[in-house]
């Protein structure tokens, strides 16, 4: 069998040092995605640095401008985060996004940081016998002209048309979270809106992280829009399916006028898609279904589709309207 080295890191700094020093090293946390990749033969690291036992599993409040923020350790399991009272009260979109993803068993195993760094489920990426620029740069993109039902409608490139699979990342993007990253040169913070990349001509790079960078925490800043937030996911089956499209939305109203709104989309692009044009169009407007549909339409200018994924345009538009009008009506459950 193929031999690889497995090391349990003692602390975050040594984990970073270990991975940084070996180009073929990978962090292993919950393993729900990476272990699949090992079995599928689509990645073959020489060194696995297990960070799952590092004490990065606290959920702590911190003082933030405008109130109390929440710092979530990278190893907090998806199930625990979804059930956390503070998350449910002040960032409900995060809880809903988590519960909309995967299955109970996987949520028990998967970690916060791992969720953000999971890789695409594009069938060609996961099939080592087909060309894929993300898996093997320069080989071509099989999803162009192939199985295209899940393909991106925004921000795709000729080299890659896939979408990011995470639900959590969409909610975090909408609510202006940032990730705390430990690298060889110390700690830094990256806003969620800047963590994931569009594919361009380097679809092999999912994020702006450098090799050896370790996400140690996620910080959720407080906001009125976060308190009134939700996550709406459209999918083929009622559970255990990746999004066809999804919407994370947060709303702050002054009467029926939008004071603040946050919208991020999943299932439409290579990264969680913050719908800033739609947000700008809605701020100061009366919150009506028509206004949201029009705002979404604006955001979707420039969408590119094929026969197989053209449905995503009306679906994301409608789902955005559904999420926002429900928030306005005070209904957040389905």
């Amino acid at each position, binding site marked *: *069998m193929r031999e690889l080295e497995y090391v349990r890191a003692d602390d975050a700094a040594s984990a970073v040092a270990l991975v940084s020093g070996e180009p073929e090293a990978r962090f292993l946390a919950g393993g729900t995605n990476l272990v699949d990749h090992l079995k599928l*033969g689509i990645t073959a690291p020489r060194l696995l640095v297990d960070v799952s036992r590092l004490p990065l599993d606290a959920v702590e409040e911190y003082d933030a401008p405008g109130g109390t923020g929440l710092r979530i350790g990278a190893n907090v399991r998806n199930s625990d985060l979804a059930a956390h009272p503070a998350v449910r009260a002040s960032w409900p979109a995060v809880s809903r996004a988590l519960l909309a993803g995967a299955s109970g068993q996987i949520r028990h195993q998967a970690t916060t940081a791992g969720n953000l760094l999971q890789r695409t*489920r594009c069938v060609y990426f996961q099939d080592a016998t087909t060309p894929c620029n993300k898996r093997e740069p320069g080989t071509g993109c099989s999803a162009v002209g192939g199985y295209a039902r899940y393909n991106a409608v925004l921000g795709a490139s000729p080299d890659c048309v896939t979408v990011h699979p995470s639900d959590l990342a969409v909610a975090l993007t909408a609510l202006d979270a940032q990730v705390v990253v430990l690298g060889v040169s110390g700690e830094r913070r990256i806003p969620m809106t800047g963590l994931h990349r569009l594919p361009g001509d380097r679809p092999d790079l999912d994020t702006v992280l450098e090799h050896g960078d370790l996400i140690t925490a996620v910080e959720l800043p407080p906001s009125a829009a976060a308190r009134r937030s939700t996550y709406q996911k459209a*999918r*083929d089956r009622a559970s255990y399916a990746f999004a066809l499209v999804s919407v994370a939305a947060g709303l702050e109203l002054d009467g029926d006028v939008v004071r603040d709104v946050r919208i991020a989309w999943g299932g439409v692009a290579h990264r969680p898609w913050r719908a800033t044009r739609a947000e700008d169009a809605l701020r100061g407007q009366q919150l009506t279904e028509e206004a949201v549909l029009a705002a979404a339409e604006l955001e979707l200018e420039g969408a590119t589709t094929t026969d197989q994924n053209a449905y995503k345009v009306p*679906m994301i538009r409608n*789902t955005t309207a559904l999420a926002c009008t429900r928030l306005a009506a005070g209904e957040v459950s389905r």
Partner: protein
Amino acid sequence: MTEQAAAPLQPRSMGTSTIRLDGRLKVSGAAPYAVEHPADAPPLHAWLVQSTVARGRVSALDAQQALAHPGVVSVLDHTNAPRLEDTSNGELAILQDARVGFRGQIVAVVLAETLETAREGAALVRVTYQAEEHAAELRVDNATYRPDSVNPDMDTDTDEGDVEAALAGADVVVDETYRTPYEHNSPMEPHALVATWDDAGEGTVLDLVDSTQGVHGVVSALAPMLGLEPGQVRVRAPHVGGGFGSKGEPHSHEMAAALAARTTGGRPVSLAVTRQQMFALTGYRTATISRFRLGARSDGTLLAIDHQVFEQTSAIREYAEQTASPTRMMYAAPDRRTSHRLAVLDVAVPSWMRAPGEMPGMFAHETAMDELAVACGVDPIVLRELNEPATDPETGKPFNNRRLLDCLHRGAQRFGWSGRPAGARASADGEWWVGTGVASATYPMMVQPGNSARVRSLDGGRYSVAIGAVDIGTGAWTVLTQIAADALDVDPAAIELEIGDSSLPAATVAGGSSGTSSWGGAIVAASQLFRNDHGDSPDPGVETTASAAEDPVAEEYALHSFGAVFAEARVHRYTGEVRVPRLLGVYSVGRVINPLTARSQFLGGLTMGLSAALFEESYRDARFGHIVTQDLATYHVATHADVTGVEAEWLDEEDYVATPMGSRGIGEIGIVGTSAAVANATYHATGLRVRELPLTADRFLP
């Protein structure tokens, strides 16, 4: 072989909800599945190397790196694998030459000391191909090949009267095309086996512990190809984790294990097909395109039925799904025609999947009937009443116990059909459009020839009853015990059943909903002859082996089971998502031998039909030639959350024309018509007629 006419059996244990005799073993993990069986020696593990071109030749296969890998024992390919005596079965005749017939075909087998080493060894085998142009896309215009017959041995085409003239004279014509996708059976236990080849002594040479729906079928397929007598091959399958048709006939992985075992000097070879490999190697349902034409009077009375089927087979082995077969017998119409045409493609070999023919065919037929009901302004149930045939439209024989209308009426009552809005898009609940739909179901009654059973008396009033049947999760262990108990007029606890072994008396496949009928008939015949020969107090050790004589009365009738499926569908106005909160099937299937296990069969069939209606699709990327949705994350089957209100019931009846137990088959009818009922409900909910499965959200968005 003694043949015995089986007399009708009076039910005592039959009809009672006996709990599964193997249930405790299974839920406690103690029931060994194929590769879990302890072997005499530590097995070598096999891993398959699959072609990465759809058509061509292996021009070079370099196994040096693999062989140099610690733990790898050998690599079999077409240059060094044992030769087969017969290569006419293009699916099973692997590793015999350099030809590649489809992407995913087995081109080498790596044997190693551990599973992980075998997998790594397979990754190290370097195969180069001389690729040729391939064809892997099914279209109407390339489905031009007319097979000699369709599965299992039915007429390819039928033509009665003058369909074109009748259509021209009809008040109402429905002329639409319906499509069903490629579907994969995906049983819980992947295909797997342990093979041992030992030709040192007399008797068994090749021993397989397999996951199969028919142990004798594996023997008869493999033995002649391997140059062995049937008696030299033994196949056992005591517990099988589902098959749904995909284990009905042996596939190439079984030959791979057998060939590999021949090279190891007697050491067993363990081979488990991965979930991904199953999408290429172990059978699937062909996609179908049905052009359906119904001509009717304005009141809905059918004048003409025309069903033209376009589907695919594999260039290396023919399989022609009998998609139009139910169209031939379902409804009355004087002028009727059916046909099947195949595209012969460079693809994996299609095979049986639960209700081959009936499942895709009845989706088309029952959706077309719904369209006709709408066109005529007739209630769908009334339409079916109007077109109920007096005799079998296909054979002219009288039906025995055709109770389709009873099923429809009982279902309508229980489901709450009356008061249903006649028009579409008439009901909403919040953000959901709500509708209901109905479809008929049917499945032919089949008893397979070639079954015999052995009854032997044991000490203490106990009996051994043996037949090479297989329980693939259906409840055969339990149901055959109940039948034997009633046939010998003893308590079920007095029966020691032996099944799942080809060294037992011959049995046919657990398929075609014919298992219980065929095996049970043999058990009844043998039991009755046993009592006749040995009396009620036999000496321990006496035995009788017999098969059931063919029943001439059954030949005089058209024997089919029937059912009615009702569905409620909700379609989300914003997202197009479809959910089915209620699904009901009512069936006429003769006597139900065990209500507990029968209910599981019906609910399972309905669930699989629901899953096919909403989710299931194997996407073939014709550029490559293989299915790219090749795992259960991308090939969606229904989850628990999707199956919230499925119910089944059956009419209280018995059918002694069909079998001495009074039963017919129940394994497949639950999937038949179900996807049409759901599709019809989505039409009623939304006013959008979707003629292609699966009914995914995108189809309901503008």
